[in-house]
């Protein structure tokens, strides 16, 4: 690759499934959005706007780029929504939350999975992402911090709080 000589296309292809899954997490489970985010990531790699310097593993770097694209896409969408709402003189509270229902919820088969997903989705974005990276993708907290662009200490705090909140939410769900 001209702009990214350190990236091997075969390695990238091997990571594609994981990248799509992470893009889904970053896009709140919306498939189209995840595809768009992943395509933007690949475009940034092709054009050299995202350069892999080899300071971390390719997977960690890719996850960070995907997350950044998803965040900026979400910010743009939110700005547009706010502008439209202002034009239509809606109250800001009328703007739908970015965590709205996606395909994710419909896709869950078992009741247990549905319950866990519902609790997980109720967590703040950072906690959700840390738990996804550590529990599901087996990343050490230090690497998760690198993906999220935060310090290890902050990542640890989000991890602990996320665990506690998830446990509380699951216990609350089973009690009701």
């Amino acid at each position: 690759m001209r702009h990214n000589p350190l990236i091997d296309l075969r390695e990238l292809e091997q990571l594609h499934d994981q990248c799509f899954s992470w893009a889904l997490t970053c896009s709140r489970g919306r498939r189209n959005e995840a595809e768009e985010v992943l395509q933007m990531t690949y475009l940034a790699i092709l054009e050299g706007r995202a350069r892999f310097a080899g300071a971390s593993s390719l997977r960690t770097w890719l996850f960070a780029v995907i997350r950044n694209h998803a965040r900026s896409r979400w910010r743009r969408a939110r700005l547009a929504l706010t502008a439209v709402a202002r034009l239509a003189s809606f109250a800001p509270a009328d703007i739908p939350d970015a965590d709205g229902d996606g395909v994710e919820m419909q896709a869950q088969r078992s009741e247990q999975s549905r319950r866990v997903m519902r609790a997980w989705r109720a967590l703040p974005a950072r906690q959700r992402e840390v738990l996804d990276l550590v529990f599901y993708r087996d990343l050490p907290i230090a690497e998760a911090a690198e993906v999220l662009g935060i310090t290890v200490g902050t990542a640890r705090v989000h991890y602990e709080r996320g665990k506690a909140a998830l446990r509380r939410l699951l216990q609350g769900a089973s009690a009701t």
Partner: protein
Amino acid sequence: MSAHDDRHDQRQTDQRQADQRQANRQHDERELATALSDALGARDRSMRTPAFSSLWSQAGARGGLVTRWRPAIAAATLLAVLAGLTWTLTGRIDIGNGATESGGHSSYSDASADLALARELSSPDYWRVPTDELMAFAAPPLSADLPSPRGFEVSLEESLL
């Protein structure tokens, strides 16, 4: 049993309880991790991952298109900005000079002249207003053809009858 043995037993009990708590926590964490992993795994299984080749080639095509059109887009934007600036600045100059694009008096200056004339005409000294000034605001002559008066010609006798 000596006090030393009591303390030793107490320490052992505390240690056992701490170990138990730690094990419970780890077990709890493992359960949480498994539950979340299962749920996220189910989500991923239910979603068909788009083929790498299709996404990659689409990105390439998109990139090529953007790169190819980038200079044209930049030039068009620059031209639009320049045109906007010129239009705004020229518009301002015109207003300041009181002239329109056709070179005559702008409606703004006409309105102020009309106003001054109206004020003068409504004053008790209205007769002092120069006639040529009044003539300048006279209605333009009609451009439509009037019917010929020839057919209406009648002699004085006829008119008397």
